[in-house]
């Protein structure tokens, strides 16, 4: 079984480490690892255990292995520079794989094609954002300063959106890919990750429905600013950052409105309760006795 993959990963392949020893999902099901060369003298034992392994794996469709994951990440990372030329497509992935010395067949590891590249980029940007936020929080702690939520969130969103700017020529395509139904769930997860990270590092401690309203409103701000960004032509995108500031202010004033409404509601309901109590007491008020007209 192991020799059938000989043409894919020739033993003398010295390119990238993960590429050389990676197991790719072959069409004959199960995993086939490259065992020519070193493993040859143990081939009997290995054949038996390999059968056991592939038996287990064929039954249960295992999650990808660490090696597979690393290979994929390496290919996608190498494909990013080709996005300007080919867009967020399989072509870019193929170009990236070939730049690493891998055969173009590797694009088979990416069934969702260009979307995989978009998600890889999104996830890497999210990781970068998280480390930026962590660093900011540590800095503020060291200076013993409190986190000012408004500016913190503004900076976080600006930082995250700036990561798109290098690819802004092809970003509309990426956004379109993300809205396709088959990609919608992953896109939603990615967006939730962004807003959850931002709120968490901004010090959000909500544990009730506010958790949802906060993240929902921030997601709306982020998305609308992203859309504004891709058509902005101003110097260093200053119009976008002003737009962002205005949207954040809207959210804050909506929060104030909500609180006012709630307070009004409390006052009104207390008033209504008082009125009801009063009305319920009316029957207990003694009727004024009518003067007996027959009395003199």
């Amino acid at each position, binding site marked *: 079984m192991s020799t059938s993959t000989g043409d894919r990963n020739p033993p003398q392949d010295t390119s990238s480490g993960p590429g050389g020893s990676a197991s790719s999902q072959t069409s004959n099901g199960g995993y086939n690892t490259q065992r020519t060369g070193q493993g040859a003298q143990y081939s009997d034992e290995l054949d038996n255990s390999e059968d056991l392994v592939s038996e287990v794996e064929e039954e*249960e469709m*295992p*999650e990808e292995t*660490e090696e597979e*994951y690393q290979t994929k990440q390496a290919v996608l990372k190498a494909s990013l520079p080709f996005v300007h030329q080919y867009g967020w497509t399989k072509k870019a992935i193929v170009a990236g794989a070939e730049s690493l010395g891998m055969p173009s067949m590797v694009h088979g590891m990416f069934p969702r094609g260009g979307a995989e590249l978009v998600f890889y980029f999104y996830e890497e940007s999210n990781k970068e954002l998280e480390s930026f936020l962590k660093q900011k929080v540590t800095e503020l702690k060291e200076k013993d300063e409190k986190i000012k939520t408004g500016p913190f969130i503004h900076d976080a969103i600006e930082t995250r959106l700036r990561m798109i700017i290098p690819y802004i020529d092809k970003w509309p395509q990426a956004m379109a890919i993300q809205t396709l139904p088959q990609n919608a769930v992953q896109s939603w997860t990615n967006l939730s990750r962004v807003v959850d990270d931002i709120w968490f590092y901004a010090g959000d401690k909500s544990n009730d*429905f506010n*958790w*949802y309203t906060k993240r929902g409103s921030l997601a709306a701000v982020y998305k609308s600013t992203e859309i504004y960004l891709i058509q902005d032509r101003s110097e260093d995108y200053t119009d976008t950052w002003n737009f962002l500031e205005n949207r954040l202010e809207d959210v804050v004033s909506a929060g104030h409105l909500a609180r006012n409404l709630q307070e009004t509601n409390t006052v009104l309901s207390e008033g209504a309760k008082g009125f009801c109590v009063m009305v319920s007491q009316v029957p207990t008020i003694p009727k004024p006795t009518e003067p007996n007209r027959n009395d003199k």
Partner: protein
Amino acid sequence: MSFPLICQMSIRRISQRAKDEKTRKLLSRIIRVDQAGELGADRIYAGQIAVLGNTPVGPIIQEMKEQEQEHLETFNKLIVEKRVRPTALLPLWNIAGFALGAGTALLGKEGAMACTVAVESVIGEHYNSQIRDLMEDDPEKHKELIKKLSKFRDDELHHHDTGLEHDAEKAPMYDALSQVIKVGCIGAIWLSERI
């Protein structure tokens, strides 16, 4: 890491990443549904107190409510600590719990106690299955949480026994009432784990 887990990992070559993801999902589910459960229980007792507060059984219900409040605070803290998403149905459980408590209390003290018995028996079993899941996953890592859940389970079973002591079984249509409430609770638990 437990021995069976190491075997699993080496045979199936699951990455540590995937394993961590599994644990995170398990923890997340457990804490989310427990917070919802404690909020629900707290609101049920609040509903019962609204109706039966001035009766002799009032202080007993009040004491149980205070214990539930303690549990709720613990889970509120855990939600923030472990970065767990609270269930989106919290407002629903808030209203439904109060309605259930008030509704059963209107059937009299026995009705309220029957409701308590039904709810607490479901919750007791539920905590037990959670403790089992955590032990299966990684008993050392989750030691703290397992201890907390065990204590809460004991509290809930104590409430269950208190309910029985106070004539829960004399409630009108006890069997039917109990069954309906149990099914409702199990449904609520299933929903809160996912939504």
